[in-house]
């Protein structure tokens, strides 16, 4: 639940103007009724939403058609060219798993760290996590020649009583991803239950009311429910926190456990985790910035919240930048000719443009976030988020393709060219993700109603001896940036 701390005094605010802190201030949100009205008001479908959903479904159908064609014709239509037997599917798998990480970081880790700015953005980020992991989970299956046998990786013996090889990183991946999906979905749903109860009590359509009643599990807002709920939520956050670190570490083991040049390095787990969080924050910006405009929620997702999230993006981009440099250093310091040659090829070889793109998007452009003006400029943040998404996809491209196409023996060196099937399935993944997300934001609140109510000043009869008044934030309506809530 939302964290409220001592509000900053006027003197402190004067000393640190416009600096986001753990104190959440929503000066334009007056009372609980306003929270209910405005957030539930976003659930009514609009023509633009139907158009967006239609485009998403169209993309999904393109991807589904390509997959059907691939199943019929065989995996060869996907542009694999020995020895490059991992391509767009594995790149996109890592990309989508990474996207999910920022959601868990925002909803769980920032919750434990008492970072107040998470309150307004965490619901979207958490939903993004679940749908991103659902999308990622499709790609190893797509990558199988016989996708209908995907369950062989689950510890369940086949008809010859052969169990999975537990020393294989691919089996580790199955455990990590399934755990991540289950825990993230549980975390999202449990956090949603009180909000669904609000919807149930406000709904007038009998069918939807009945549906919400089922999904709310009979939640009644009693003190007993809240007491245990808050504790359970804390423990779920505590469980989700190490998952952020472990899941992408395990994904990085898919590469680092092999002896392929560019892959066999101990820097991969932290490098992957930082990259995942960075890419996820990029996607959060891509989603949140239009959403707050279209839903007219600028007084909930304030510039201060975006500013704080931008600082997080800047920090993770710096970590990722250091990891890139460490890769170079280790290649030089190892004295391994293959490693040195590989990294030289990464910079000046056939994939130089992909490397240049990723370094520009992930190391150079985010440096703009040192400027407070850029951090508080939503147009720039959104444009930058697109660059971050592109840069992080190409980071995985540069990890996967150049390594496999440029191994130890020169006679093994090869090229790689994705086919229309690869591109169609890549488009399909964005359609699949967008479809779920669009459906979600029109059925459930995209901002947590009960958590926002926690940071809104409650109605009080008088100043109470127990000090309830001091927990409110009696600040006048005063936007940090002129026109911020327009």
């Amino acid at each position, binding site marked *: *639940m939302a964290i409220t701390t001592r509000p900053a005094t006027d003197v402190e605010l004067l000393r640190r103007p416009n600096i986001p802190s753990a104190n959440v201030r929503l000066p334009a949100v007056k*009372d*609980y*009724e306003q929270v*209910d009205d405005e957030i539930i008001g976003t659930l009514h479908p609009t023509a633009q939403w139907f158009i967006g959903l239609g485009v998403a479904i169209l993309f999904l159908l393109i991807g589904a058609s390509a997959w059907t064609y691939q199943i019929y014709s065989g995996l060869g239509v996907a542009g694999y060219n020995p020895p490059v037997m991992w391509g767009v599917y594995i790149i996109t798998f890592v990309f989508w798993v990474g996207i999910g990480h920022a959601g868990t970081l925002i909803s769980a880790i920032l919750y434990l760290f008492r970072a107040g700015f998470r309150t307004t953005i965490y619901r979207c980020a958490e939903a993004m996590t679940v749908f991103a992991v659902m999308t990622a989970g499709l790609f190893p299956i797509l990558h199988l020649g016989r996708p209908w046998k995907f369950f062989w990786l689950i*510890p369940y013996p086949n008809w010859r009583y*052969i*169990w999975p*090889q*537990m*020393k294989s990183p691919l089996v*580790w991946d199955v*455990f*990590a991803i*399934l*755990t991540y999906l*289950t*825990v993230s979905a*549980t*975390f999202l749903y*449990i956090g949603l239950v*009180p909000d669904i*109860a*609000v919807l*149930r*009590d*406000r709904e007038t359509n009998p069918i939807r009311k009945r549906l919400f009643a089922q999904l709310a*599990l*009979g*939640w*009644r*807002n*009693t*003190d*007993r*429910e*809240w*007491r*245990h*709920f808050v*504790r*359970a939520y804390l*423990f*779920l956050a505590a*469980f*989700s926190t*190490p998952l952020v670190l*472990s899941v992408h570490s*395990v994904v990085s083991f898919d590469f680092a456990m092999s002896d392929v040049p560019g892959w066999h390095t101990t820097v991969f787990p932290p490098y992957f985790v930082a990259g995942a969080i960075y890419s996820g924050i990029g996607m959060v910006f891509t989603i949140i910035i239009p959403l707050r405009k279209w839903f007219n929620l600028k007084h909930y997702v304030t510039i201060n919240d975006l500013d704080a999230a931008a600082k997080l993006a800047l920090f993770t981009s710096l970590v990722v930048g250091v990891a890139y440099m460490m890769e170079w250093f280790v290649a030089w310091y190892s004295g391994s000719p293959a490693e040195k040659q590989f990294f030289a090829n990464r910079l000046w070889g056939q994939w130089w443009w992909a490397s240049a793109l990723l370094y520009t998007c992930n190391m150079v452009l985010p440096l703009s976030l040192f400027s407070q003006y850029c951090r508080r400029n939503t147009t720039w943040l959104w444009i930058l988020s697109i660059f971050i998404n592109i840069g992080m996809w190409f980071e995985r491209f540069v990890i996967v393709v150049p390594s496999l196409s440029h191994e130890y023996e020169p006679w093994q060196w090869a090229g790689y060219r994705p086919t229309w099937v690869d591109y169609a399935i890549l488009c399909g993944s964005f359609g699949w993700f967008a479809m779920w997300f669009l459906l979600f934001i029109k059925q459930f609140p995209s901002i947590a109603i*009960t958590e926002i*109510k*926690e940071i809104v000043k*409650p*109605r*009080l*009869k008088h100043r*109470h001896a*127990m000090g*309830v008044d001091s*927990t409110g934030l009696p600040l006048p309506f005063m936007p940090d940036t002129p026109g911020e809530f327009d």
Partner: protein
Amino acid sequence: MRGVIGLFRELDSTCDAITLLKKSKLGEFTVYTPTPRHEIEHAIDAGPSAVRMFTLVGGLAGVTFGYWIAIWISDYWPIVVGGKAIATWIPYTIFGFEVMVLIGALATVAGLFATARFPRITHTIGYDNRFSHGDYGVWIEPSPDRMQEAEQLLRDAGAVEVRIER
């Protein structure tokens, strides 16, 4: 089950009612609040949640099962890989950890359901839709001879609406 429900508009009035109810020992009471508030929590002063025990037991069961399943599978079909032992604890820590998180999280949810007594199929008496919106409620189950006293207590504390329900 017969009781009195009082509907409050303000948080501090609700806290006053809780304090008075605890002093008067009228009977078991339930507080409805649209969002968790420390003020109500302090006024009620209930003990720590038992969810933590479910989490602990689930986590321990998960880590044990995670290691066990990996070791058992390796021993069931022993294949030497890379000259390593059949059951190697270092990579199997991944299974121990992941299953600990999985079972621990699910046990936490089970603990929440058990301790908070939901899911419920129907609403119990006393619930009002306004409690999820912005109002607070206090439900008391006094003995029949103290029903009037409970009603008066809620009004004195600032309830804007008081009614007897069964």
